[in-house]
């Protein structure tokens, strides 16, 4: 287990390092970053000043090293437009996005796992077909359009839920549904496939032959093994959702990391964009690493490979 964990940790660190390199290189996507900051029609002296002020006149490797070193110490640079440390703004907004993500994944899982189990218990039944149809429909629905439709139906026509903002828990219902339904199809398919496989195995037959109640066999014996792969998938999907929250937060005007990302993209605030990409990537790396560990703990067979 220790060797397995160390190996995974090494890969995770390497991935984080590569991501930081890619993120840093965004500085040079447009050519000269100093000219981008100065804007059109700037004088040459101004550009030179900006270049010195932000340190773009140093060798690239030195710049990267400094940037990485500062980032490791919690200093992600200063925002071009807000003139404050990027890290402060990000950590102020991060909890909102994490909360939204947690609500969304909870919704997705509570929808998908029972449906997947039901579909697997009676394959080709009405429930199975309903679940598959929902999965196909869910995969085809554009997130932003679904969000707008929810606003229109539940916010405007029925007036059940608040449309924008984050004043109360009710504000998070629609965004969480719009973000979370995305997760459901994949999780449902995986739960169904896992349950079908487990239900056909010998130990389930033994449990049934012993005369255990069907419910106990289903939930205590079968589901426990069938959801192991779902753990990894849910972690991956949670990471994707943090990235996808930019669309939902813009629609519902939730002041989280996604909305911040959209604002800084509008203002071409490069340090802010870089920091958000970096933070979200690192959160993804950490979450998938933890999920790997949890998986290895739940299923000893994984540790061997």
């Amino acid at each position: 287990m220790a060797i397995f964990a160390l190996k995974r940790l090494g890969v995770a660190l390497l991935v984080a390092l590569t991501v930081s390199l890619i993120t840093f290189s965004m500085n040079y996507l447009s050519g000269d970053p100093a000219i981008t900051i100065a804007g059109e029609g700037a004088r040459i002296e101004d550009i030179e000043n900006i270049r010195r002020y932000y340190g773009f006149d140093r060798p690239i490797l030195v710049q990267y090293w400094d940037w990485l070193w500062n980032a490791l110490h919690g200093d992600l640079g200063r925002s071009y437009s807000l003139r404050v440390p990027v890290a402060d703004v990000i950590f102020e907004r991060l909890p909102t996005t994490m909360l939204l993500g947690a609500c969304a994944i909870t919704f997705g899982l509570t929808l998908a796992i029972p449906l997947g189990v039901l579909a697997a218990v009676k394959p080709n039944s009405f429930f199975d077909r309903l679940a598959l149809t929902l999965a196909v429909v869910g995969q085809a629905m554009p997130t932003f359009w679904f969000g707008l439709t929810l606003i229109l139906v539940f916010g405007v026509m029925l007036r059940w839920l608040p449309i924008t903002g984050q004043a109360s828990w009710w504000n998070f219902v629609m965004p969480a549904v719009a973000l979370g339904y995305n997760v459901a199809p994949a999780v449902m398919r995986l739960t169904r496939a896992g349950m079908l496989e487990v239900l056909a195995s010998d130990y389930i037959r033994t449990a049934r032959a012993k005369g255990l109640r069907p419910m106990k066999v289903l939930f205590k014996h079968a589901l426990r093994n069938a959801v192991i792969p779902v753990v990894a998938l849910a972690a991956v999907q949670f990471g994707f959702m943090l990235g996808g929250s930019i669309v939902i937060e813009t629609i519902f005007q939730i002041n989280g990391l996604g909305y911040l990302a959209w604002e800084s993209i509008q203002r071409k605030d490069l340090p802010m964009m870089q920091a958000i990409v970096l933070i979200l990537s690192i959160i993804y790396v950490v979450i998938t690493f933890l999920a790997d560990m949890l998986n290895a703990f739940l299923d000893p067979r994984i540790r061997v490979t």
Partner: protein
Amino acid sequence: MAETTITRTPLARAGIQTAEEILAPSPGAMMRRRVFGHFGLMFGAFVLLAIIAMAIFANVISPHDAYDQQLGRKLIPPIWHDSPKVTWNHPLGTDHLGRDYLSRLYHGAQVSLLIGFSAMIISGLIGTVLGVLAGYFGGRVDMVVNFLITTRLSMPVILVALAVVSIIGSSLTVVIWVLGLLIWDRFAVVMRSATQQVRSLEFVTAAEALGCSHLRILLTEIAPNVMNHLIVVATLEMAHAILLEAALSFLGLGVQPPTPSWGLMISEAKGLMYFDPWLIAIPGVALFMLVLSINLVGDGLRDVTAPENRS
């Protein structure tokens, strides 16, 4: 088997088929039967072909110029609305600038299909090469490719795409390249495992024993056997690219106005949706139908080409 051979031989020599042979469906007929009997595939293919036809003949079938603004005729509701402004001249009504919505819908199909298809080709090339090499050679190559896939997955697609587009500047070509360079991960994952499976089969070992070169084995032994997986992923990734383009355009960093893109149409109508909800409903339904049909075709092709893998 032996029985049929015995009874068949004399007749076959004389060029006569037995009743069983005549009645039994040929492999081609079996395939056709599976294809035409698959509801999802048929429905998806029908809708997809209709949308492709819409895109190809957009200039011919559009009742009006998709860019022509007539502010005197703005915000006419579609014909099923109960309003005095409704006219058959604009079956789906007009937008906030008085442009014919049906014509814009037809032209939007062009943008979606063009971006979806091109981005799919680019990402397919990258992902397939990486995945096949990893699956075929294994070892270090596999490790490197796996690392690349993990790194790619850890970066949030929409955010990176938005950031890059905002730095470089937005155009159709930029959107296609950015999406193409970002979404190759699923191609690589699927092609890697498909190649691994085929690689361990006897006929590949036989080809190696005969002294075939790697290139020859990859092209003549591996490629035909992973093709069905490739087609399925290709359809799913095309749908993925179309959804991403719509999201980028919706956020204002994809296709730029006045080009009609379904995502952009929804974005432009966002402020008016409380009063004229059809403005977001129509392009949204179009987008939904396009992605649904592509996904149905992909799922259907998987069922038809590999019935034993049916989920």
